């Protein structure tokens, strides 16, 4: 796979889509928006890099962890809540395709594929959530111990 079409273009598409969401979420600071968009792009590059593993869940998990760590770092850099970077960065992974295909198989009456797609969509959502909460739990444990000492 060529580096440009394989990684660069998806990175740009993901980052531009995130830029649209930055406006929707009323982010006015250009630097913060830019960092959030880069986070979205990075998440997808991490996803693509894990493609050889062959497991969609693992791919989503790894990119969720990537974007969560990125947001915690950026939150420290810009002194702002990490949610800002997190909710934008997570967007490329959100299973919009999964919801659509689930619905499509349902109205086509293709029950096997419907159930398979439904379970895999729920699995993807779960993998993202576990990845994100893993990082934020660790960060909160570190913070709590830092303050108590």
């Amino acid at each position, binding site marked *: 796979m060529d580096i440009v079409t394989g990684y660069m273009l998806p990175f740009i*598409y993901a980052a531009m889509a995130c830029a649209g969401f*930055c406006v929707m979420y*009323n982010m006015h600071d250009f630097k913060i928006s830019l960092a959030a968009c880069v986070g979205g792009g990075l998440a997808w590059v991490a996803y693509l890099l894990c493609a050889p593993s062959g497991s969609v869940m693992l791919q989503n998990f790894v990119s969720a962890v990537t974007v969560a760590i990125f947001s915690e770092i950026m939150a420290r850099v810009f002194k702002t809540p990490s949610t800002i970077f997190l909710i934008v960065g997570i967007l490329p992974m959100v299973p*919009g395709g999964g919801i659509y295909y689930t619905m499509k198989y349902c109205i086509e009456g293709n029950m096997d594929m419907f159930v398979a797609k439904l379970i895999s969509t729920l699995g993807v959502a779960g993998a*993202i959530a576990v990845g994100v909460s893993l990082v934020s739990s660790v960060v909160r444990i570190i913070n709590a111990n830092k303050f108590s000492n």
Partner: protein
Amino acid sequence: MNYSREKLLDAACKLGRGLLENGGEVYRVEQAIAFFMKAYGIENPQIFAIPATIIVTIPGDDGKAITQLERVTSISQNMDRLHLVNDLCRWVCDNTPSPDVIHKKLDEIHRTKLYSFVQVMFAYGVASAFFCYFWGGNTGDAIVAFIAGLGTEYCLKYMNRVKANVFFSNMVSSMVIAVIAILGMVCGLGNNIDMIIIGAIMTLVPGVGITNIMRDIISGDVITGTNKIAEVLLIAISIAIGIALPLSAFTNIFGGVL
């Protein structure tokens, strides 16, 4: 710095409300109010927050408990304001200003400019078009997705104005997406209806909710988590129904081929 406890309680609740309304997490609200009370030397505050409500009880000036409840009806993602309120919370905890100053600063934050309707509509279009590219659509598909994105925001805005509920406004918006996608296919601009629709519904899919549910549950806010699960499922089902109706009507009643 001897301020009346009732005024302090009110100021703390308004700060918490500012965080919650602009998309802050529940644990952040509880933490912020706890830090506030600690900074003003109020002992043993009882704080409870869920996405709809904040309840805070503290001992009053005469030793009797005083309670304030804030009902939050609408939560929107205003990251800029969240950032400002969060900064204000830190500043308040460091400087312990009078409650009037806090109210004045909060008012200033709530007067900060939001993006105009046209800008947001354009953003919906851009996000839809690039998500369409992202999922593998070509330029024709992206143009249709862009128009669908504009239609989505227009529809959401209109539904908000007529005070439609979440289920109905998402359903009608996704119907608009599906109709625009079908029209794009019929007039030959789009090549792949799947990509157009997926690109456009990405703006409706509750990604924020999906991400935050497990975080809430794992960090112990189980009520908040189950609350959001219900909301996310509701939105997902409304999108699915909204997309399915025009699609199946087109293929089954009008005999169209997609």
